[in-house]
Every structure is written in C-alpha cells, then in structure tokens.
C-alpha cells in the first residue's frame, strides 16, 4: 500500500501480549498527541512482530519502509513527537530500533507461516489479498481433491500441535472415508505453557487460518468447519470473528465459494478451561457438548470424528501452513528443514529469557543458538539451568543437552519432545523437585479421569515426591516414583498421563541433587 497524501501510518499492535503491557494506552496517546499538534496520522492496529520484550513496539511507515520504536509506553509518546518520528528526517531517539525488517532477531528468521503477522491489518481482507492472501485457495480451486492432498503429503508437513503426524496422510484418510457429511476442526486450544504461536497467528493473521481450513474442506469434501478456541484468548475470538464475517461477505466462505458452487461454513466455538481438550478426541467430545473425556482409538477421528463423521482435525499452525504450500508448491516447503522435519517451526521463547518472543526458523538450529543468540540468555542475568521444551509434558533439559538440534527425531532420541515449539527457560534459582511435583499436580488437576494411571497416578506422584523431598526413606520413594512413571507411560490412554513422566523423570535424572537437599534455605 502506498501513502495517500500527507497521512503517515503508525502501527501499534493489537496483540494480547502487547496490550498486556500497555499498547492500547500507547495507541491512544499517539492519537491524542497527533491531534494536539495538528499532525495527520493514521493509527493501524496490527499483529505483533513477535519481539515481545520490545512491546509495545510501534512502527512508522516512511517512504514504504517501516521504522520501529520500542518499548513505547504512553509516557514516551510526547518525546517521540518532539523528535519528529513521523517526519522523513526524525531526530535520534533512545527507543529507536531502526528499520523493522533489519532488526537481527527478525532478519535471521524464515517467516513463512508468520509472513504477514505484524505486517498487515488483521481486520482487513484487502490487506490480506494485497499480501499474497488467498493465492493458495485459488490454486486449490483448480485442483482435484486428491491432488490437493497429494501436494500436502509431498510437502512433508507434519502436524504442528505436538504429535507431528503427517498432515497429508490424515487428509487422505478423510478423503477416502465414505459419508456425505464430513467436518474440518481446528484445534486452537493452545494450552501448553510457553506457547503462544497459535494466539499470535489468530490475532495477527486470522485469514490464513480460514484459508487453510477452507482448502482442507475442498481437499476432503468437508463442508463445515469449527475452530475450537480456548476461552483464555478473547482477543483471538474477536479477530477470528471479524475475519470470518469479512470472508462471508466477500464469498470466501459460504455456499458458493468464489462462484464455484462449492460450500464451506466456518464457526468459532469456545472452550472452557480444560487442558485435556487440546487432545483431539477430548476436543471432539467437548465440541459435541460433553465432558472433555478422551475417546478410545480406534476408531480414528478421520473415520469417526465429530458427531461420528469423518473429521480432519489439525492445529492452527498446521492449517496456516497449507496456503503457502498450495501457492508455492510442495517442493518449496520441502526444501526447508532437517531430516524428516520439513519446513519451518515457529518456536516460542518464554519464561526467564531476556528476548522472549516468536522465532520462526527452519528445523535444525540448536537449542543453544536459540536460547543465547535469539533469546540473549536469561532475563535475570543468572545462568540458565534448565529448559522445558514442548509444554508441561515436555522434558526438562540440562545445559549438557543444549546442543540438540531442533528436530522431532533428535528430541525423541534424548527422551524429549519439540511438541508445539514452546521453550521455557529457568535460571539457577529453580527447584527441580518442585517442578517435578508441579508436573504431577498439573496432571492431577487436568486429568479427564477416564483412565486410572493418569487419574490416580498423578495424585500418588505428588505424594511420593513430597515424602522423598521430606527425606522419608528417599531410596524407596525414588524406586516407587520410577515405577509409577512406568505405569503412567505405558498404561495411560492419552498423552497427558503418558507424557507427564517426561518432566518428572528428566528432573530426577538430570537434577537429582534437588531432591535430596533443600535448594533454597
């Protein structure tokens, strides 16, 4: 887009994380200060660029390049105007970050799925179209369903929710399943601590998710889609709803998509605070209006899913990766990556980290590079002692494992998992026995209760760790805990009970000293 006349565009994120540190107040102050000085500006509320430690990060568009300032609080706004930040020759300002695209954190990334996040206005379908939006759907429209599925399979795209199952194979099963009614369900119940990529994408570029789900509908013959969104993301709900309304109004959704006679309807359904509903069968139960209890598999959701019908169920990032694969071809995506992990993975740096945020990179970079070159070390300035990768069910890694490359198989080899790409750093004040206890406690709170190892085992786990740390026959408690972890691993119905031993055992194996003495006096 080019500027019309003298109106300068100023971008202030509407992203929940940016708002949580004052972006609304900043936007308001900018508007008021500009009016007071009689300067013509247009404030656009974009998504976040993902450099969250710099939020609120504002940008000014000057002769088609965007220049960033951050973190800008409402109090900083008058001084920015003093420095003439909306003019073509601004004076130096302490918060100036230079041309946004040239900031090292952003420049080193391979933004595919997040290409538009932070760039466009998430409420504007026109902006989406101007930034290569809906080109994937256009390509899909001219293809046979089996060819769309084949292209997704060839790209090597694996589910980004955590389990990393090849997306194309799932789609193929649904395409081949008999039935007149099929569904597409998006798992937007991003419950893993340390992850926020789904939220950022839905708030910053909701159309790409809608486009990806529409393509999934065309590919499998499904005519109705649901986005199951967690209640903790109210801003994402607003963004999705406004994008869905815009898509309906312009016939990108509905009973006659772009005049093709093909149908795809889409709606958002809200979750209600249950971690287990991120498990796909439990999510389907919840969508049906029931307790979110895990189903036995088989039957696979691809054959008997929502309301007993064949259902494609994928994570937000998985669907959002589809349009670019259809637009640029399977090979383009396949060329990025490492081993059997193809394409890019949006990693999220969180917890005790100086430069927290979203880093979309091709697979293969090491954890250490991510923590120090992107993350800049810990926020507290103390050494990073443990890193939990892959959410509350992911292993805690000690420093000796920081050179593991980010790749599904490499992580599996050290009994860890990449999961949904969340990385939570802890400094050396962490008490790993307390973290192991929390993992068991979390499992007890969030267990759906269907299988015994998870329902009872998690509570027993908390008790055993308490006795161990209290020094009651420590050797015996350790044996019991290992035995309990084995029972949970092999006896649980789903990943909640089955993977809770990951953080527990990794804490025991790599940080044994924390279980035998009080870490803090």
């Amino acid at each position: 887009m080019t500027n019309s006349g003298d109106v300068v565009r100023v971008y202030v994120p509407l992203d929940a994380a940016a708002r949580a540190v004052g972006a609304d107040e900043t936007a308001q102050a900018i508007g008021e200060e500009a009016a007071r000085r009689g300067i013509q500006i247009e404030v656009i509320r974009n998504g976040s660029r993902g450099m969250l430690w710099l939020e609120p990060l504002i940008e000014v568009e000057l002769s088609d390049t965007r220049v960033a300032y951050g973190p800008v609080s409402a109090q900083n706004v008058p001084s920015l105007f003093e420095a003439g930040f909306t003019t073509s020759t601004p004076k130096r300002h302490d918060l100036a970050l230079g041309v946004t695209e040239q900031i090292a954190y952003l420049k080193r990334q391979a933004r595919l799925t997040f290409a538009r996040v932070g760039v466009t206005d998430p409420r504007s379908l026109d902006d989406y179209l101007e930034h290569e939006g809906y080109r994937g759907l256009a390509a899909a429209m001219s293809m046979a369903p089996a060819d769309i599925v084949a292209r997704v399979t060839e790209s090597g795209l694996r589910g980004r929710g955590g389990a990393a199952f090849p997306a194309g194979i799932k789609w193929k099963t649904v395409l081949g399943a008999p039935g007149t009614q099929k569904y597409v369900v998006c798992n937007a119940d991003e419950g893993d601590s340390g992850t926020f990529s789904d939220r950022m994408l839905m708030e910053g570029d909701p159309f790409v998710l809608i486009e990806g789900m529409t393509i999934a509908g065309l590919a499998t013959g499904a005519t109705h889609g649901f986005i199951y969104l967690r209640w903790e993301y109210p801003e994402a709900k607003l963004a999705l709803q406004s994008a869905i309304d815009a898509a309906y109004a312009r016939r990108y959704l509905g009973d006659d998509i772009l005049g093709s006679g093909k149908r795809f309807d889409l709606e958002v359904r809200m979750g209600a605070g249950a971690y287990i509903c991120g498990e796909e069968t439990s999510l389907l139960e919840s969508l049906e209006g029931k307790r979110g209890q895990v189903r036995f598999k088989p039957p696979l959701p691809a054959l008997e899913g929502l309301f007993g019908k064949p259902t494609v169920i994928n994570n937000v990032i998985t669907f959002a990766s589809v349009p670019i694969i259809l637009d640029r071809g399977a090979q383009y995506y396949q060329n990025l990556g490492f081993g059997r992990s193809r394409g890019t993975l949006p990693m999220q740096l969180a917890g005790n980290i100086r430069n927290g945020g979203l880093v979309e990179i091709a697979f293969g970079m090491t954890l250490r590079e991510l923590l120090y070159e992107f993350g800049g070390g810990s926020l507290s300035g103390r050494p990073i002692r443990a890193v939990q990768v892959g959410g509350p069910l992911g292993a805690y890694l000690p420093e000796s494992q920081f050179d593991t490359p980010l790749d599904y198989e490499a992580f599996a080899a050290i009994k860890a998992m990449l999961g949904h790409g969340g990385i939570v750093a802890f400094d050396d004040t962490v008490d790993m026995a307390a973290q192991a206890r929390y993992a068991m406690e979390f499992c007890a709170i969030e267990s759906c209760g269907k299988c015994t190892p998870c329902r009872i085992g998690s509570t027993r786990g908390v008790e055993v760790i308490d006795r161990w740390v209290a020094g009651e026959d420590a050797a015996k408690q350790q044996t019991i805990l290992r035995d309990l972890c084995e029972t949970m691993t092999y006896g649980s119905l789903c990943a909640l009970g089955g993977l809770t031993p990951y953080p527990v055992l990794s804490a025991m194996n790599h940080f044994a000293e924390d279980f035998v003495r009080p870490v803090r006096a």
Partner: protein
Amino acid sequence: MPRRVIPLKVERPSSLSAEQQSAVLAACTNLKNTPGALLPILHAVQQALKFVPKDAVPLIARELNLSIAEVHGVVTFYHYFLQERPGRHVVHLCRAEACQAVGAVQLEAHAKSSLGVDFHGTTADGAITLEPVYCLGNCALGPSVMIDERLQGRVSPQRFDALMAKARERS
C-alpha cells in the same frame, strides 16, 4: 381404604430469580438447535449471570432433553464455569511453568495474602474472586494475570496491588 398417592418427583422450589430464570431460558431457546449446544449455552448463561447457578442445571437439562447428571457433569468438568456467584471482578492468575520461571509462585502467595483469600475465594468486600489458570498465552511477558478477561503482563506484586486498586475503583 382410600388410595394414597405418593408423588414420584418432588419439584424443589428453584432459587433462581425471575431474571435469572429468563436469562437461562433465553440462552436455551437461542442455542438449543445448534449441534453440541451445551457448552455454548453454558457460556451464554455465565456471560449473562457471571456464573452458572446450581438451579440453572435442571432447567437446562429439561430444555435440552438431557439428564440433570449429564449437565451437572459438564458444568463441573470445566474450570471456567463458576458455580458460585463471583465477586464484582474475577482475577485469573497464571500458575503455569513459564510464569513460574519469572516469579508466579511468589505472586500467587502475595495475591492470596493481600486479598485474604485462597483460590476460588472472594474477598470480604465482594470485590474480587481469585481463580487459578493454566496458561494465558503471555509466556514471554509473565507473570500474567487476567482481570475480567483483560490480560496483564509483567505483573510484579506492586503492579498486582495497583491493578486490584484500579479494579476496586471501577466497580
């Protein structure tokens, strides 16, 4: 001998006010024909009344042709649905790992002692209900809390107190 009739079902008088009853019925009428209607209905009830009163359960069950046990089972399964009337503001405090790494455990202790309540409790002045939550998706800028569904990041104990004071001013 005269026949004694023992009623099979004793209708318990409902504690719902007329407004509450009509809000529940409105939610049911509007949504009961959508597939998987129960969660959307419970959301609508909580949005209108701030909680899902116990006596709303038999009403919803009747409207949806479900058993009371089924509806009760769903209401109690999900942490978000409150079964008691909350205070004027609901504060969700994140307990998850990313926030723990930057002081959530200390913030939790501070919140409980400064408000004088445990989780699920409401302050004596009826202003604030404190609830735990497991991740608000603000993991790079923790510790996080959500006040009436508005997210706040980098919440130190001091900032927490200021936010609570502000919330109390609003009501």
